[in-house]
């Protein structure tokens, strides 16, 4: 797959991150209909979808280097963003194998994996990494295997152990999260870590989702989209760092809302791991400023309707009340009220 990587931009401070036209057109827009409500919106994670973001098993894009640089900065300040419980060592190696094989296959001009029995050589050209190690021996890598590979792949990751007919969040690399904490959730069961989500418990979404995931089959990964809004293209909106990003909410005005407000979409993938029988949960986040998003005509109109008519409890949970009206007013001129096709494809090939 042809992947062009930009020099590292920033997701903090001066927020130099911008989406190119190509990046805007490949954005995984999350609203197939005008109205949004929680559902078990999972589908098989097969190659191909409404945009190019669905073409790889684990998608990388032009922001790769900036993303990885931001992750390294977060880990310097807070090493607890990457934690794995001791019984998850098999899942660590499963993750490393899966991510290395996927990247080497999907982006072969940037990554390569050479195996000679258990002696593996991993080359990551964009990050200038060329390491030889012994698969299964953690002391031959500079970091534990899960941390080693997730420092090199965009998106947050958690690993869930399956036991007692439940899933337990027993490890993760979480540096670009929408206001949740791995350090708080580590070791929790499925309903426990989903505790704060409103409405969905009452309509049985989590009971059904858990039953479905317990039977997730090897080789048949599934995906779903989740979304929220973030002020500025900031990856690290963690509870631990709320003092750093919370005040940003007060800086949004009718004049700057288009430039400052970002739609944050998570392309979530769930993959059964072989040796450990654990589930790898990939939370691949994408940020797009409203002024970038409205350049796709259908998306501007659709987002206007979704935000305008959003269930108040969901709007509250997503931290929206302070600026919801400003967003609706900003988007309204991009919505002529015409009926939009179902689905999320941009329906235009250039901007």
């Amino acid at each position, binding site marked *: 797959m042809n992947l062009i990587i930009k020099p590292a931009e920033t997701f903090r401070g001066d927020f130099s991150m911008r989406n190119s036209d190509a990046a805007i057109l490949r954005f995984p827009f999350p609203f197939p209909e005008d109205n949004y409500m929680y*559902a*078990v*919106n*999972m*589908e*098989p994670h097969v190659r191909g979808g409404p945009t190019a973001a669905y073409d790889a098993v684990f998608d990388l894009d032009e922001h790769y280097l900036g993303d990885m640089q931001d992750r390294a900065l977060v880990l310097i300040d807070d090493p607890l963003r990457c934690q794995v419980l001791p*019984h*998850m060592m*098999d*899942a660590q190696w*499963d993750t490393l*194998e899966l991510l290395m094989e996927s990247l080497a296959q999907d982006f072969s001009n940037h990554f390569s994996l050479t195996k000679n029995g258990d002696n593996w050589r991993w080359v990551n050209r964009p990050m200038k990494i060329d390491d030889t190690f012994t698969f*299964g021996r953690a002391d031959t890598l500079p970091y534990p295997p899960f941390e080693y590979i997730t420092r090199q792949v965009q998106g947050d990751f958690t690993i869930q*152990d*399956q*036991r*007692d*007919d439940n899933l337990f969040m027993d490890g993760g690399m979480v540096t670009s999260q929408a206001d949740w904490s791995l350090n708080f959730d580590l070791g929790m069961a499925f309903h426990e870590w989903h505790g704060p989500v409103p409405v969905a418990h009452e309509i*049985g979404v989590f*009971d*059904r*989702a858990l*039953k*479905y995931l317990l*039977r997730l*089959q*090897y*080789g*048949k990964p*599934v995906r779903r989209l989740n979304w929220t809004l973030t002020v500025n293209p900031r990856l690290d909106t963690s509870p631990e760092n709320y003092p750093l990003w919370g005040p940003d909410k007060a800086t949004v005005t009718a004049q700057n809302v288009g430039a400052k407000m970002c739609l944050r979409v998570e392309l979530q993938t769930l993959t059964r791991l*072989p*040796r*450990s*029988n*654990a589930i790898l949960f990939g939370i691949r986040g994408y940020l797009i400023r409203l002024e970038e998003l409205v350049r796709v005509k259908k998306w501007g109109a659709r987002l206007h309707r979704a935000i305008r008519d959003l269930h108040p409890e969901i709007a509250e949970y997503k931290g929206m009340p302070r600026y919801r009206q400003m967003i609706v007013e900003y988007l309204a001129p991009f919505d002529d009220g015409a009926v939009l096709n179902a689905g999320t494809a941009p329906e235009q090939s250039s901007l």
Partner: protein
Amino acid sequence: MITRIANVVALSPTIKRIALEAAEGAALPTAAAGAHILLHIPGPSRVWKNAYSLVSPPDERSKYEIIVRRVEHSRGGSAWLHDHAEIGAKIEIGLPANLFPISQVAQKHLLLSAGIGITPFLAYFPVLQAGAKNFEWHHCCKLADAPAFSALLPRRREITLHTGRNTLNLDSLLGRQKLNTHLYICGPAEFMDVAVAAAQKLGWPGEKIHTESFGGATGGAPFTVKLARSNLTINVGPEESLLEALENAGLNPPCLCRGGACGECELPVLEGIPEHHDHFLPEQKRVQNTAIMACVSRAKTTLVLDF
């Protein structure tokens, strides 16, 4: 996935070990201890889909190995493999699935197998050994089969072969285990029932008792559905789901997860009694027989669907 039979070894007159390699010579997907594969065995009138535990270690990606016992009253698949499986022949398999994984939190693993139930534990053994795990394995078989199983079992003090009914004292064995021991049982149904009952009687919690099962099949008894709107009659065969039967008839019913959870493929039932296997329908619809999830559920009678 198409594989080629790479080797066939007779371990006894009724037991064969068969090795499969990827037909294109590529590496097979990493498997898992306890995983099984579905073999698509070409019978004279139809394809049998039989599940076999992998006996090769998870990291073995050049070949998958299975052990097949010729079953007296089998559906035909195991007999076909015994009579016709030849080196070089091609055979289709499904991806490995694991319904019998090793617990990641157990501090001791107690393995009980009987007869051909030895197979998943042959894949467990190298994993437990490599991880320096605390384990104990008791295998039971008929005296006549002892040479074949004895040759398969590693010589270790943790592993015992029992060839008579009375040499394994289940109550004593299960009663002396420490709290964080997990129990794994694989063998004929009668053997598994006895072992599970013994453990339950001694107070073992359910989540620490693991039994091998090849669930997850979408098939079952055949049934018929009548589609009220399109005026079609569809026969759902024993090897296919209602959803697949509708698709095979050229229809395009909504679906998403194909696993009974998402709710997309719910179809209204006008007449008849469904046999529900889904996790979606609320209790009321379930008992009133007003809806069916086409991807996993079947029927006890002929159904009339509003579709």
